[in-house]
């Protein structure tokens, strides 16, 4: 090989090139790697100094010497694992530094950063991937797959030619990676059941090329710059008044058959919004009323959907206004007052008395706007008068179930639509049902981020105790994602409660993985409807009182998320009991202890 073979035309002058060659020839491979890093750093510095305006030196590839190599396998019987491990050993013998992963446990977000990827995968059934690799395939073949322009890849496919879909799993990945913009380094090789020889030939050929490339380029080629894409400046800030129209990526049930719940997991795309959130934050969703609820209210009030209406100076119709701007399900005391005046009903008037608060609450609990309008009809209403008693429609807030460190420009929610029957009619919560029923993947909803600084992971590695029932587990998913990415060492303990183990164990497989990987230290569960005696999270806390108190004494932060009416007070009470019992304190002293936790921001709640 001559020095000119790699002369980068236009990037360097011949003289510069010759200097570089001289230097290169004097370097050991280690020195060469160091120099390569030096130039890369120098280059980045130059770019920054020039305010990001400097063009890259050349439109060359990223430094090949530092290209990473990953070997990814999918297997049921272990054949592909063995091949992948052999391949890795052979690669190391050639001076390469491969990492080997099972598709079953591969962190999918890594894929967008892979550079060279070798895939070994077998096929089952009707062209299906190995069972443990099904998630990986779904990710790669799904709409959430990242573009892979940075990637070079090669596929070794195993199969059985007596089946119709021979080596189909390998073929699927080979096709899909190409679609995602990755470059195929080698044509795929399909191996039948006697795969040893073709697999070995493939490995030899692939590694020879990679090793030669790495050896050559490590000494022969200067590192070229990669322009870093700065965050777009001046993007419009989205907030409650100016929500972002975000696309729904996924909307799936996360409860199994025979569940009494309809809990769903919803993934939303924030790309291009400039929205950022922290674990513990909430997502605001600007919502609308169901058209049939609007129609029912209009009918009860004897008003037309087209009735003109002026809202803060903007002309609209009553139908539009009721759908988008006013709460028309649950009634407020203000509506009660308004309607008492309009209807002249002595019953309603009586409920307004100061000493009848509990009856008023009960009445409002049992009567929505439409029920009151039906029961106490008012003739000759006009639109302006009707809406004067209504409360503006508020966005709904949902605890975020993801961490940006883990999911990038996405936000995940866990929600359980509120549905019940009132006066013989099915009723539902405005936003939860709206999201569950109408947020099809591909549709958009207006969202913004609601910061919640009072529900934050501790700095550093303080232990955390997370208590949540039902969808209250959502923020803990974001905590675990965050801690996993950070590689945080702090201990963590999750108490989770729901109705039935088999159907309602929200994100069960994720917690199992976090436990296995040590991201989550321990977990206790309470399923209230599996056995005769109902068991809730506070019962599990009390059973673990000694350990729980020890964690508190060691500086643990306590989080409570979920139902504000029953769970949160019960958990609070359990905490006081545990502190009193384990700390040998009187009740007042135990209350003090818990109050101090709150004051020190070590006891944080997100309840609703």
């Amino acid at each position, binding site marked *: 090989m001559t020095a000119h073979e790699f002369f980068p035309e236009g990037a360097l002058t011949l003289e510069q090139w010759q200097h570089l060659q001289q230097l290169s020839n004097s370097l050991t491979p280690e020195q060469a790697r160091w120099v390569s890093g030096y130039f890369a750093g120098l280059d980045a510095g130059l770019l920054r100094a020039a305010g990001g305006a400097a063009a890259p030196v050349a439109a060359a590839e990223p430094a090949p010497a530092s290209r990473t190599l990953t070997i990814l396998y999918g297997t049921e019987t272990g054949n592909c694992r063995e091949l992948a491990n052999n391949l890795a050993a052979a690669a190391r013998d050639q001076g390469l530094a491969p990492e080997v992963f099972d598709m079953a446990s591969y962190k999918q977000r890594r894929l967008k950063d892979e550079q060279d990827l070798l895939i070994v995968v077998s096929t089952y*059934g*009707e062209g299906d991937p190995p*069972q443990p690799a*099904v*998630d990986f395939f779904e990710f790669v073949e799904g709409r959430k797959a990242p573009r892979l322009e940075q990637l070079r890849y090669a596929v070794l496919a195993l199969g*059985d030619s*007596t*089946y119709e879909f021979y080596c189909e799993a390998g073929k699927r990945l080979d096709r899909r990676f190409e679609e995602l913009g990755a470059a195929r380094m080698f044509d795929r090789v399909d191996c039948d*059941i006697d795969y040893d020889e073709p697999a070995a030939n493939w490995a030899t050929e692939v590694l020879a090329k990679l090793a030669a490339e790495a050896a050559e380029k490590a000494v022969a080629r200067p590192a070229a710059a990669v322009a870093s894409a700065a965050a777009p400046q001046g993007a419009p800030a989205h907030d409650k008044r100016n929500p972002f129209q975000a696309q729904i990526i996924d909307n*799936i*049930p*996360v*409860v*199994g*058959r025979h569940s009494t719940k309809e809990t769903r*997991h919803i993934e939303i795309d924030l790309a291009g919004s400039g929205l950022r959130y922290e674990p513990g934050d909430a997502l605001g969703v600007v919502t609308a009323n169901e058209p049939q609820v609007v129609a029912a209210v209009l009918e009860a009030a004897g008003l037309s959907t087209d009735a003109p209406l002026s809202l803060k100076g903007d002309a609209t119709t009553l139908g539009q206004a009721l759908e988008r701007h006013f709460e028309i399900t649950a009634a407020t005391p203000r509506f009660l007052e308004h309607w008492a005046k309009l209807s002249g009903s002595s019953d309603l008037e009586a409920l307004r008395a100061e000493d009848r608060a509990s009856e008023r609450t009960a009445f409002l609990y049992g009567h929505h706007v439409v029920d009151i309008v039906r029961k106490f009809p008012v003739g000759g209403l006009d639109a302006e008068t009707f809406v004067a008693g209504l409360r503006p429609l508020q966005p709904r807030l949902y605890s975020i179930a993801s961490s940006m460190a883990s999911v990038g420009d996405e936000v995940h929610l866990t929600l359980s639509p509120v549905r019940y029957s009132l006066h013989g009619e099915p009723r539902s919560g405005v936003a939860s049902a709206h999201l569950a029923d109408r947020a099809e993947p591909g549709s958009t909803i207006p969202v913004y981020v609601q910061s919640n600084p009072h529900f934050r992971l501790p700095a550093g590695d303080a232990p955390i105790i997370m208590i949540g029932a039902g969808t209250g587990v959502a923020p803990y998913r974001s905590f675990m994602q965050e801690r996993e990415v950070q590689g945080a060492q702090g201990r963590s303990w999750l108490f989770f409660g729901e109705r039935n*183990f*088999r*159907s309602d*164990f*929200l*994100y*069960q*497989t*994720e*917690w*199992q993985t976090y*436990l296995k990987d040590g991201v989550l230290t321990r*977990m*206790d*569960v309470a399923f209230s409807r599996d056995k005769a005696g109902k068991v809730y999270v506070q019962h599990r806390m009390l059973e673990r009182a000694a350990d729980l108190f020890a964690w508190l004494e060691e500086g643990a932060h306590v989080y409570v998320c979920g139902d504000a009416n029953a769970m949160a007070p019960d958990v609070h009470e359990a905490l006081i009991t545990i502190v009193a019992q384990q700390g040998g304190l009187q009740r007042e002293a135990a209350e003090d202890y818990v109050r101090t936790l709150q004051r020190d921001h070590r006891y944080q709640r997100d309840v609703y």
Partner: protein
Amino acid sequence: MSIEDKVIDRSADLSQPLENLGPDETLKAHSDYLRGTIARALVDPITGSVPFEDNKLMKFHGIYQQDDRDIRDERRRQKLEPDYRFMIRVRLPGGVCTTEQWLKIDSLAQQHGNNTVRLTTRQTFQFHWVVKEDVRPTIQGLHDVLLDTIAACGDDSRGVMCTADPRDSEVHAELARLSKQVSDHVIPKTRAYHEIWYGAERIATSEPEEPFYGPTYLPRKFKIGFVLPPSNDIDVYTQDLGFIAIAGPDGVEGFNVAIGGGMGRTDNEPNTYPRLASVVGFIPKDVLVACTDAVMAVQRDYGNRKERARARFKYTIDDKGLDWITQEIERRMGRAFEPARPFTFTSNGDQYGWHEKSNGRFNYTLYIQNGRVSNFPGRAIMDGLRAIAQVHKGHFRLTPNQNLIIADVAAEDRPAIDALLAEHGLSESNVGSALRLNSIACVALPTCALAMAEAERYLPDLVSKIEKLLEANGLLDEPITIRMSGCPNGCSRPYVAEIALTGRAPGKYNLYVGGGFHGERLNRMIGENIGEEKILEILGDLLGRFARERQPGEHFGDFLHRSEAIEAAQRLGPHE
């Protein structure tokens, strides 16, 4: 070179250190005699499963972890683990069961087993769909009626079979007692079972926990069966160790001993294959236990522990040579085999309906499709058998063909049994094509982890379609054995059937034909990885030829074996 001087390869057996053997050997050796961490795994509330190692060990306790494969994918998307369930297999030597035991099984199935229980091809009960926290209560319930599940699965001697012939006699009763005696003798002796399932205290002892097995048990499962000619209902040639009873005027005199049978094979692994047991000679009755110990000890000491697919006794025999193995058994038994006595088998199927016994009492064999005891529309098998168990004064026998004998009924009690059968829609159970009455399917999907295709849920439909072919050829009353397994391992003993199907993929099977009607000959594959249409096309052709060209009284399998019809079918090409 004489047999004594033969150099025996010891590179894969018990004489090797653990690190030279397969991973299961280390797992067994480190299990603390089958304890593992089972007790802890049972109470782990985060999962309905047990860890990999404990799952393997629980097989020795008669328990398999499975999951509902129909909803595995759905649950994965729901971020839920698979719907883990446990299969619990009872140890029921000879398939003999009291009415009290039946009623207990019935109530446990209702409480923990999704209202169903299965009669198996090895004459026992299997509960399916048991959730983890119900496993212990189920086993404790069995204990109440003196039943256990020890060694119903695992690398040990499994449940012992025994001919269940409704025309039975005192000889049958004696054989059933012997099968129980042998079963009690060969099961593991570890106290782990009592500690884990009954909550017994661990007792410190200096005695060896497993005087026979040692810490690594057998290389693989080991199956023992007793058969009384002319019935070969237990398929004695498929047992690792078969005892063919030779009876004289005073009852059982002794046994012809058959060794090395086994069904399992692996697709695309030519060094795995089904093998028929070899009859090596006769022993008098009083040598029975010594012979059992000798045969099992040879397999324990020489069986392949390096490669699980080659660990069954049949491969040990083929690797070391039948003569050498026989001699080694004789050496350990302390005596030589006598020459085998003559015997004749006529069928491996069941005799249905009422039969009078030699003592003037009666047995009734009830056909139970695929052994599935459950309530179906118009056929309340579970309710009906419960009602019978409540009044029946005799006992029950489970047959190796997954049917049930209501045994030892006095003549005057027959009408009551008939009435209960009628009341629950079971009177017509035994009316069907001779093919259907000679059919066996394993459980397969959705619970069996090994299944690649349907079996129990599909065979009845396929039989209906084959019945049309039989009808067209006037063969509806011709007894033909048909067996289906969801995978190649062969729980339904497919490789000795006249027609057999083993699953390859959903809707795809290997088709075998030509086995012996009484289980004396292996069948041959004539279609590989084919679907229903092709299966029916091939069978239609063969049944047509059979109807036209058979000799009087000739069985379907014998005809195919004699007539080159198999070769002709194979020439058509096994592939679709």
